[in-house]
Structure formats: structure tokens, C-alpha cells
């Protein structure tokens, strides 16, 4: 057994976040299992910044999720991911308690490469965590650190490395934080599965990505998602398809579809005008239609989609920059940059989980 397999299985055991679970488990990664002893989102509680940038240990799961669409000096499109997941092994944990389990995922995607690294750590010993004072989310030497601004997230430096890649990039927010769903209260099913969810989609990026061939200066756009919950999925939901799109017009589109075991699709979308003005759309407005599949890691994953949001006259086709953007991590999933054609041009990120 190799190290990978061990890590994988460690996580499979926890039922942390993403990817496939053995048959019979609830939802993917156990996210659909009942979680009464954990804190539950409350529609009336308004999000508060910067306090809510920190960890919410009373909730079962949480993430700091950054995706970036970058371009090298020769115009090569590139994707970058930096994610810190938190999972509470038991309810009632403290901010930095030993019952917190942390997981970092980092990836760099080019049209012909997809490089991934993963880190695991326990809470309570200083190996991983999130500090609000001088904001930093970290695991080992991977960090997302505030470099100034009115809000800690306005200006960030993000770094990570694996055996065959490394990156170090600076982010500067060009617009406001966006609250998803109903002021940050994001419905994930008709039956009431729900999470807190906000984003910062307006980052301009500059920095260095080191590939096996050497360092490359990059620029581009990035999108940070923050989400925490105790049961983000209903018990019959098996996976999700999620997009974050930077349109050439300056508008941003976040959308997701949650697939049910019975074949149903619960969709949700947020339209962010270039000004930062937000329009949320509930179930059914966003239409996601898979067009083509790629065989990756022994399974078929839809890597080309038709995305329609008629209310905003949006009718797009998104296509993976690299169909092989498989995250071969403890919980495997697909995550990679996409090109956009159709009613709008642009680029963005696609994430798909729960494909067996």
C-alpha cells in the first residue's frame, strides 16, 4: 500500500468532504448523514466579517476554497486550486481542539498537466488551523495569509507545494464580498439541507507557479468560496456539479446542481453584476446539461456542459481546459479550469463530485 492509499483511506473513514463513498453510505462522503449534535445554520443570523472568516468549530465541516484562472507569459491557460478543509470528528469542539481534522488540497492544471498535493493534520498542536488575528489559514507550510486591506480577505498571499509543483501568488480583491443564497444562507435541497456560504469572486492575481520545468510568472483571476455547515446535503443526494465563472463582461456566475438518487437535480445560482450587485436564483432557474464526457480515473465525468440562466440571457457552453483534472486525493473528485463560449466569453472553474 502506498502513502496515497493510506491517506485516502484515512479520509474515507472520516467521511470528510468529497468524492465517492462505499455503497450504502449517506450522500457522498457522509455529508448527508444526520448531524443533530452539531450546530445548525440559522436563517436569521447575519454573517459578520471579519469574524466569520475564522473557523466555526461547532459545525461539522467547513472550507476555505480558492480557485484561480491564470495565464502564463505565452498565453497558456492555467488553473490553480488551494483548499483547506476542516472536519469535526465530534460535536462541541473548540476553535483549535484536537477533535478537528484538517485537510489541504493544492493543484495546478495546465492543458496537459494536472498536479495535485494533499496534506492532513490534527487540530490542537499548531500544525493546521485558521487564525483571525493577522488572518491566516494554514496546514503545514501551505498558507493563505492576509497581506492588508480593510477586510482581511481584501489582499491575500497564497502558497503551497507538492513534490512536483509549488506556487506563491498575491491576490487583490477588486469588488465586495458576495453573500450566496439568502444573505449567505444557502439552501442545498428542498428538504432543508443548508449551509452558510459566501464568496470573494473579484480577485486579480499575480505570482509565480513552479512547474516541473521551472518557475512561470502568472496573472489572472481568482475566486474564494467560504462555506460551513453540518449537513449540506439531503440524505438522498449523491453528488454535485458546481461552477464559478468569470465572464468577460465582468459579471460572475456561481451555480450548482445537486443530484438526487432518484435522478432529480436541485439547482441554485447567484448572478453577480460587475458592480457587485447580487441576484440569487432558487431551484430550477439555472439549467445544467452535460454535453460530453471524459473518461478519467476509470469513470466517465461530464467535462462539457450547457449552462443556461434565461433570466440573465445566459446560454453558455463550458469546456474543460484539461479533461484529466482528477483530484486523486483521499476523496477523489474532479476540479479544473474551463473555457466559456456562447452568449458570453470568459473562463472559470468546474467541480464535480460523486461520480462513481
Amino acid at each position, binding site marked *: 500500500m502506498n502513502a496515497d492509499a493510506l491517506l485516502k483511506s484515512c479520509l474515507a473513514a472520516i467521511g470528510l468532504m468529497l468524492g465517492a463513498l462505499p455503497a450504502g453510505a449517506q450522500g457522498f462522503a457522509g455529508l448527508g448523514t444526520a448531524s443533530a449534535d452539531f450546530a445548525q445554520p440559522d436563517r436569521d443570523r447575519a454573517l459578520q466579517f471579519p469574524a466569520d472568516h475564522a473557523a466555526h468549530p461547532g459545525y461539522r465541516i467547513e472550507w476555505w476554497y480558492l480557485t484561480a484562472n491564470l495565464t502564463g507569459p505565452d498565453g497558456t491557460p492555467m488553473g490553480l486550486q488551494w483548499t483547506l478543509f476542516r472536519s469535526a470528528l465530534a460535536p462541541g469542539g473548540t476553535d483549535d481542539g484536537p477533535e478537528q481534522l484538517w485537510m489541504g488540497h493544492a493543484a495546478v492544471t495546465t492543458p496537459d498537466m494536472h498536479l495535485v498535493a494533499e496534506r492532513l493534520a490534527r487540530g490542537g498542536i499548531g500544525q493546521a488551523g485558521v487564525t483571525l488575528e493577522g488572518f491566516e489559514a494554514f496546514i503545514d507550510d501551505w498558507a493563505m495569509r492576509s497581506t492588508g486591506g480593510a477586510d482581511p480577505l481584501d489582499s491575500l498571499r497564497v502558497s503551497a507545494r507538492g513534490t*512536483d509543483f509549488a506556487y506563491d501568488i498575491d491576490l487583490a480583491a477588486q469588488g465586495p464580498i458576495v453573500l450566496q443564497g439568502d444573505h449567505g444562507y444557502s439552501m442545498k435541497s428542498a428538504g432543508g439541507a443548508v449551509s452558510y456560504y459566501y464568496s470573494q469572486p473579484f480577485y486579480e492575481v499575480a505570482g509565480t507557479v513552479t512547474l516541473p520545468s521551472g518557475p512561470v510568472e502568472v496573472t489572472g483571476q481568482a475566486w474564494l468560496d467560504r462555506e460551513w455547515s453540518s449537513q449540506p446535503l439531503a440524505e438522498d443526494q449523491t453528488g454535485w456539479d458546481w461552477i464559478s465563472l468569470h465572464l468577460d463582461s465582468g459579471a460572475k456566475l456561481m451555480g450548482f446542481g445537486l443530484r438526487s438518487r432518484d435522478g432529480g437535480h436541485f439547482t441554485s445560482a447567484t448572478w453577480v453584476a460587475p458592480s457587485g450587485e447580487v441576484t440569487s436564483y432558487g431551484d430550477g432557474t439555472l439549467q445544467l446539461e452535460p454535453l460530453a464526457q471524459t473518461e478519467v480515473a476509470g469513470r466517465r465525468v461530464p467535462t462539457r456542459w450547457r449552462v443556461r440562466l434565461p433570466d440573465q440571457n445566459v446560454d453558455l457552453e463550458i469546456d474543460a481546459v484539461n479533461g484529466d483534472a482528477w483530484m486523486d486525493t483521499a476523496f477523489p473528485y474532479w476540479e479544473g479550469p474551463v473555457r466559456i463560449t456562447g452568449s458570453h466569453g470568459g473562463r472559470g472553474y468546474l467541480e464535480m463530485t460523486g461520480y462513481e
Partner: protein
Amino acid sequence: MNRTAFLALLSHWRRHPVQLVTLCVGLMLATALWSGVQAVNAEARASYDRAAADLGQTPLRRLTGDGPVPIAEFVALRRAGWLVSPVIEGDLPLATDSLRLIGVDPLTTPPRPGLEPLLEGGDALPRFLSVDGLMIVAPETAPLLDGPGLPPHIQSAQVPPGTALVDFRLAQRLLGRDGVDHLLVAREQPMGLPPLSEVTDLTLTEDQAGGDLAQLTRSFHLNLTAFGLLAFAVGLFIVQSAIGLAFEQRRSAIRTLRALGVPLRRLMALLAAELLALATLSGLAGIALGYVIAAALLPGVAATLRGLYGAEVSGQLGFDPLWAVSALAISLLGAAAAGAQSLWRVSQMPILSPAQPRAWARASQRAILTQLAVAVALLALSGALAFWGGSLVAGFACLAALLIGAALALPALLLGLLALLQRAPRGVLGEWLLADARQQVPPLSLALMALLLALAANIGVGTMVGSFRDTFTGWLDQRLAAELYVTARDPAEAEDLRAYLEPRADALLPIWSVDLPLRGAPAEVFGIVDHATYRDNWPLLDAVPDVWDRVADGTGVLINEQLARREDIALGARLEITPDWQLPVAGVYSDYGNTRGQAITGIDALSQRFPDRPRLRYAVRLPSYQVSEVQTALRADFGLPEANAIDQSAVKRFSLDVFDRTFLVSEALNVLTLGVAAFAMLTSLLSLSGLRLPQLAPVWALGLTPRRLAIFEVARTVLLALLTCLLAIPLGLALAWVLLNIVNVEAFGWRLPMTLFPADWIWLALWATLAALAACLWPVLRLTRLPAADLLRVFANER
């Protein structure tokens, strides 16, 4: 022609199914015992490799400090990007045993066998990480852990027995320690890291301990292999007699076939093909049986290895195709060796030789004398090796020459003994009994040799083990002089215990130790206080006059016998304990059952050099009538687990228990070898029973009932077995002498006095009688049921 000739040859087996069964079973048993032992050896070797990987030893580098490595150091290295993972190890005392705790961090550890249950989903990992904790232990360890106060456990066959894999935080808590022992450094590190020297003061070491177990246990496996070979040889006796008989009985068929124009070469090829087919079938069956035997033996072997070497071998057997192939090969080779002689005889047989079977395998007087001459030469060689050998290989060669020589001398010796018996006054039937016994010695000699070897091995190994046990018991009495042994769970408790015990005990003797390499091999260094307990009792083999003063003031060191012998360290030689600490050797003490080096010096000297070692153990001297009272008080007042305050008798019981388990395998193999020898005798007797008819029919005709004939047959077989047993006693003692004085010294590094156990010999004589009875039961039953017509036919016509 081939087909017809082949069928003609094969038809023999249809008429003699017992012979066929004998041949196949003999080969199967030989293969089974040999391959079984090989499988056990292979599994043990695999376990060592696993243990080496398991301890993160061979391939992985580790970071260590002068003392415990703080967790902060681990985190600092991780935050600098270095992929390192903490490991802490220690012994947790249990009621009768101690449990080896290996604390790891499942989230950062390099792959490690045994953690698989955490990977299977479910709640194992959260429980493993939780405050309550979870232990992963081998199935055989699980029953030891049912006491209160221990974390819950799950099982994995990948964990070495006696070991528990736990989260490092739990290990720290259970062992009462801060920090960890070392950090494992992952082989692959991220790109662009700062140099380690800039990040940490810990030192990076390549681990050298990987080959130790293989080294230490080599002699044990050589031992097992020798046993396997012995069993194989005994099995081949069976095969050879069966093949020989079959070829003899087919002489007429072979002659006829040749007269009908089948070329000799073709005939030989057919016979060889037949042998190959039979050997293949029997070999396959033998492999299956060998696997079963190995699976049955393995737990015992594991206990032995653990008791002797502290080497952890899993009690579960894997299946290696390579092993099966090699076992089949050895089976074919054995059949070829056993059949070669018979094939050669067929090739030499003139076409017109008489078709009547001649008395098969009946060696002439001269053959027996030739054999005796070879035997004497071998015994002389054995003696020479015993006195001038001086290595483990020479020791085993000496054993081999001794055993083969004695076996070859057996027929001559038996004839001599029977001749002596014939001088004693006896009745007419006694006369006949002895005369017939003499006549049976040559044809039975192979089976009797097998019996001799099995019995001698029994006596030899029994004497060795018994001597060892006697010495060990006496040595325990000396060494375990203190009445009570107390282990604290943490340094603070140790201090409290000391304060509590000091006024109550006659003396409180700290037992503090450090694991260190001595002369490059893993060893322990103990520090002791100056006390009469040591001066009066310690089992010194050799010492300078003021040995205890030298030890007490830290100007001398005691070493155990094995270290002295292995490194050839004489009194007065300087022993380097650490690079800047050398002491002259002031004494050598016996330290049975331990294969590692050990040294003892004054406690002050030791604690000065190693101030950070936890000091948790004490030997307590107090009047024996107070022992249980103090034990009870310790449990009540300190909540000390039972296992942490053990009295002397419990330790002795435990030690002897370990000792006995250690030699279970030898006993099992003894019984198996004896069983095979009995089977060899059975086959020989069965083969002979056809030839016996002309010898018995006249006696029957002269007025002996078949029942009385049967009684005499049994008596004769038992007589031969008992005489063989009589000869096996001196041979067994010689074997024991070689084992104790040559093999043990070379293999383990200790010399033991030899003790005789005559009562065991009587038991063995009983066993030999039983084996002989079992072997002759069937042939004799067949005899008693023989119709008169069959007996009468002997006299009638030319057969």
C-alpha cells in the same frame, strides 16, 4: 508399445494398492514436513522484513535528539514544509505480560502495516484519534487486553503480536511521557524546501537496525531447517523402501517385457516416468499438507521467536507460489534419489535373471560391516568437528556426521545386541524370536534408522531444553532476588511511590536503563545502586576481585555472557558505552534467554550521562509476608494497576511460561518426526509381511496358533524398537552435548551445564513401544486373519 508396456507395469499397483499408498504417503509426508518448515521460515523472514518496515527502520531516515523530541519540533518541521511524522514507543506493563506500544500519527505517517483498519471507513479513524483512543493489535494479542483501564482495541493481523498501534497522543499519555522518540522523514519531500539543518537541531540518522532480527534468528532458522531435513530424510526412507519393494516385485514383469522385445532404455524411461508422475501427485498433496502443518506450527514458532529474540512474527501464514514450486522440486528430487538405486538395479539386471523375488534389501554380512566402517569414520569426523570446529556451521556439520554415522552403525549394533541376548537362557520360542529378530534387522534397518534418529532427536532436544530450563530456573532465583517490582506510570508518580515505599521497604532499588548500541549491536545499559541484593545474588560467571565496588562507583561495568562471547571481551577490556564514556569490564554474568547485549554500571554514572531518561521502575526488598499487603496498598492508594506492582513469583511464573512456550515448537516437531518414523516402520513391516509368510508358515504348521504367531510378531517388533531406543539414548545425549556445548554457544552466546532426565527416557521407551505397536498392528492383524489355505500354499508348489 509404450502404452502396452506402461499398462503392464502399472498393473502392479492395482494388485498392490497398499504399496502404492505407502509410496505416495511417504513422499507426501517427506514433502510436507520439509515444505512446512520452509513455509514457517519464509513467513518468519517476511515478518522480519515487515517488522523492519514497520519500525520505519530500513528505508526511512529518522530525526532524533538527545532526549525526547518535543511535539513543537515536529510541528515546526511540518510548518517548514518537511514531511515528517512522530513515533513514540514504549512498554506498557500488563497483568502477566507487557504490551509494546507504538504511537504514530495516522495523518502524517508513511505507510505502515497494521493501520489498514483505519482505512476501511466506519468510525475507526475518529476513534483512533479521539481522547479515549483505540488500539490496533494482532488477533493473538487481543485476549490479553480485556482488563479495565485499557483503551478499546480492534484487530489487524498485520500488527506484530504483543504490540499495539495507537495514536501518538494516547501513547504519550499511557506511557507518561512528553514528546516522542523520533520523527520519521518521508522518502519523497516537496520541492524547494530549506535544508534540514536550518530548520532543526535534531540529527538525521540512517537506521542500521534492520538486519538485526534476521541476524539474530539465523541460527534458530538453521535449527528448524535441520529439523525439516531430518524429517525429509526420514520420509525418504519410507519412499525408498516402497520403491525398492515395487521394483523387486516387478522383476519378473520387467524380465518378461524385455524378453518380448521392449528395449531396456525404453523400460527405464517408462519406470522413470511412472515415478515422476507418482512423485508429482504426492508432492502436490505434500505441499497441501505442509501448508496445514506450517499453519499449525506457526503460532508456536512465533512464540519461540518472541521469547528468544523479541522478534515479532505474525501467527498467520501467507501462501507463496515460489515456496510451493520449490517444495515440489524437492519432492521430485527426493523421489529421484530414492528411485535411482532401483532404476540402476533394473538397468544392471541380466535379461535371463531368475524371476523369483530374492530377499529384497537383505544386506549381507559384508554390507553391514562396510556400513559400520563408514559409520566409524563419520563418528570420528563428528568428534573431530566437536573439538576443533569452532563455528556454528561446524557445529551443525558435527551434528550431521554424528546422526548419520550413528544411523549407519545401527544394524551392526543391533545384531551385536541380539547376539548378546541369545546367550541368555531361553525357551525354544525365545530362541526362535531372537533368531527371527536378527534376520529382520537388515530389511528393517532403514525404518529402524529412522526410528533411531527420531528417538535421538527427542532425547537430545529434550535434554537440551530440560537442561536449559533447570539452569534458567536457578538463574531466575538468583536474578530475581527482590520481592516486588513496581513500575510507575509517570515520573511524578514514581517520586510519590518512592516516598511511599522508602520507609516501608528494607531497600528500594531503582532499575533504570538506556537502550544503546554496544559494539555496534543493539543493547541495554542498566544502572544499579550498590546493595547486598546484587552482591549476594547476581549470577557472575567471572569477575575481578572488587567487582561490586567498581560497579558501584561507576569505574567498572558488568556485561552479560552473550556480549562477552560475541565480541570476545575479556575482563579488564574497555567497553565503549557512548563515544565519550568508556569503562573497563569488571565482570561477566549469565543472562539466559536474552540474545541482546547488556551492560550494568553504577546508577549515578548512568543518570549523569542520561539525565532525561524516565525513572519509573523499582525493585523493592521487603519481608515476603508484607508483599501482598504492600501490593494491595499500592493498588488502593495510588490506583496502580495490578501489572505495575508484580511480585517475584509472578515474574518467575511469567518467565517460565515464556520459556515453555518458546520450546513448544521443538516438541511439536519431535512428535511429528516420531510419527513419521513409526510410519516408516509400518511401511517396512507391510512390505515384509509378504516375505514373512514362508518364514512363519512352518512355525504355524508345527503347532502355533495364528494368535500366538501374532503375539510373537508384535514382541519381535517391540524388541527391535526398544533396542533401538536403548541405542538412541547415548546418541541423544551426544546430540544434547553438541547442542549445549557447541551449537548453543555459537548461536546464542551462552554455555549451559547438561542435566540428565532418565525419567524422560522411560517415557520415550514407552513412546517407542507405542510407535512400534502402532506400526505392526495392521500387518499383524492381517496375519491373524490369513486363511489356512494361504499358509498351506507356501508348502505346496513352486511359487
